[in-house]
């Protein structure tokens, strides 16, 4: 029992450390990729190819003054970013990262907590993460913040539905809510990937995932050109940084989920070992998010709702119905 507790604490610490670092690295990658897609060089001056820019930014964020506006609701203002960051990491707890491996005769499951309702847990944790922007926007006594949180509410109400419904069909197929089981269901190679059975669900999930992580084309919460910085307008220093650690952690989570649910998870892929396979898949989805950001314009909040309620949700329900029918026959 003690061993489990120690193991879990170590895993949790590792996840937080690694994924925080990855989030930072994510910002660097994003800047580089956006730069190349726009014929620029991106960060170049700190370290080779600007790689140490992450460290520089980190130092900056940590040392920057933490400003709390005079009329803000101080307590909520202060905890809002923590909600975002914390929920992002909590969600990661139920994500199996690699296949199990053995060190010194001790089998390690690279998942913090393999709970049998993993998918529900992740979705729930990520959804509660949206309280961060919602509360931050309302607590800061700033009109851009208020608009930001109003938009958060829109997003909240619209896309949770699509995420849930889109995953319902694969869940029905697999018959479990644990991601380990999903992984296990696709061991038979590329042909067994769920994406072939559920392409519509995959597309819906990806769209909803973009919205969930607040990425272009759905970055309406803090769209600079419209509402300064939305919910993050009054934030500075590390509090602001936490929002972004949360955002990038969420991006990674979504990428993991997409790979695990639809793309065969960490099963071996041809000659590739499972660990490498999942890394490649996750990287691709992460890259996709940046790629889309560089390519597509963002949409208006009303278009977002229209798309969700009038297009995506009916399609998702249809998908569930059809899946159910096919399964019954």
């Amino acid at each position, binding site marked *: 029992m003690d061993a489990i507790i120690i193991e879990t604490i170590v895993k949790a610490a590792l996840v937080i450390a690694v994924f925080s670092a990855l989030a930072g690295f994510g910002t660097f990658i994003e800047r580089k990729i956006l730069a190349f*897609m726009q*014929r620029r060089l991106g960060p170049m001056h700190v370290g080779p190819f600007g790689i140490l820019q992450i460290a520089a930014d980190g130092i900056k964020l940590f040392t920057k003054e933490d400003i709390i506006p005079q009329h803000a609701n101080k307590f909520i203002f202060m905890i809002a970013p923590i909600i975002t960051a914390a929920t992002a990491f909590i969600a990661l707890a139920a994500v199996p990262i690699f296949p199990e491996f053995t060190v010194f005769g001790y089998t390690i499951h690279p998942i913090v907590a393999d709970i049998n309702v993993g998918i529900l847990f992740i979705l729930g944790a990520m959804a509660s993460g949206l309280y961060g922007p919602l509360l931050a926007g309302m607590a800061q006594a700033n009109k851009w913040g208020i608009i930001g949180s109003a938009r958060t509410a829109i997003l909240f109400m619209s896309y949770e539905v699509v995420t849930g419904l889109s995953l319902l069909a694969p869940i029905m197929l697999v018959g479990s809510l644990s991601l380990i089981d999903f992984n296990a269901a696709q061991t038979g190679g590329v042909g067994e990937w769920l994406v072939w059975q559920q392409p519509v669900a995959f597309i819906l999930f990806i769209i909803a995932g973009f919205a969930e992580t607040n990425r272009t084309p759905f970055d309406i919460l803090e769209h600079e050109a419209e509402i300064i910085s939305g919910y993050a307008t009054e934030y500075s220093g590390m509090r602001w940084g936490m929002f972004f650690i949360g955002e990038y952690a969420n991006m990674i989570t979504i990428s993991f989920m997409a790979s695990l649910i639809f793309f065969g998870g960490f099963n071996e892929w041809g000659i590739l070992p499972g660990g490498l396979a999942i890394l490649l898949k996750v990287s691709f989805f992460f890259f996709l998010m940046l*790629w889309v950001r560089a390519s597509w314009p963002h949409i208006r909040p009303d278009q977002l709702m229209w798309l969700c309620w009038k297009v995506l949700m009916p399609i998702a329900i249809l998908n569930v119905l059809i899946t159910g029918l096919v399964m019954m026959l």
Partner: protein
Amino acid sequence: MSLNKFKDRNVGVQNYTLIEHEAFPQTGGEKFARVLKRTIKGELFVGLWVTMRTMILALFNGEIHTVKYPFEKLPISPRYRAIHDMLRLLESGHYRCIGCGLCEKICIADCIKMDTKYDENQRKEVTEYTINFGRCIFCGYCAEVCPELAIVHGGRYETASQQRASFSIFDDMLTPIDALKEQKEYPGFGAVSPNADDNIKKTPLAY
């Protein structure tokens, strides 16, 4: 060439191409149809391809447009209107400014000031001349009005500094006396037109 082209004073509009765009969808059905159409047509993937292609070219073909300012600088047009220079007479090295005050008067931002006095040689001496670059809008009027081609725009466009005064004093703007040989005439606003000689009427001085 016909003059019609010049008589059309709608500057800029002539080269516009109007884009025909389809009618906006009115009903929900139409809107849905458009979404469907666009989705199927793969417009979004064209967008993705454009950025991907750019990235590939950038990475593997070196098509990067970044200029590493301040390590690299692009040449500016000789007619560019940057921080002013005060020129000297080539022969005597005396500053050209006669203190007529026309630049001070015309300056749209009211940022030129000058102090003058009667000097020992019975001439008007410009004891100090300054431009408040916190206000100057680099319109070039001063260079255009100057009858002596004394004040011109120079090439110093890097105007960030801790003190405005760093640029704005007579001595800073004046061509250094040892650099007189390198002093260049300014071809922009206020320069002598190429046919200036033809336009001058001569006063009879037959004696």
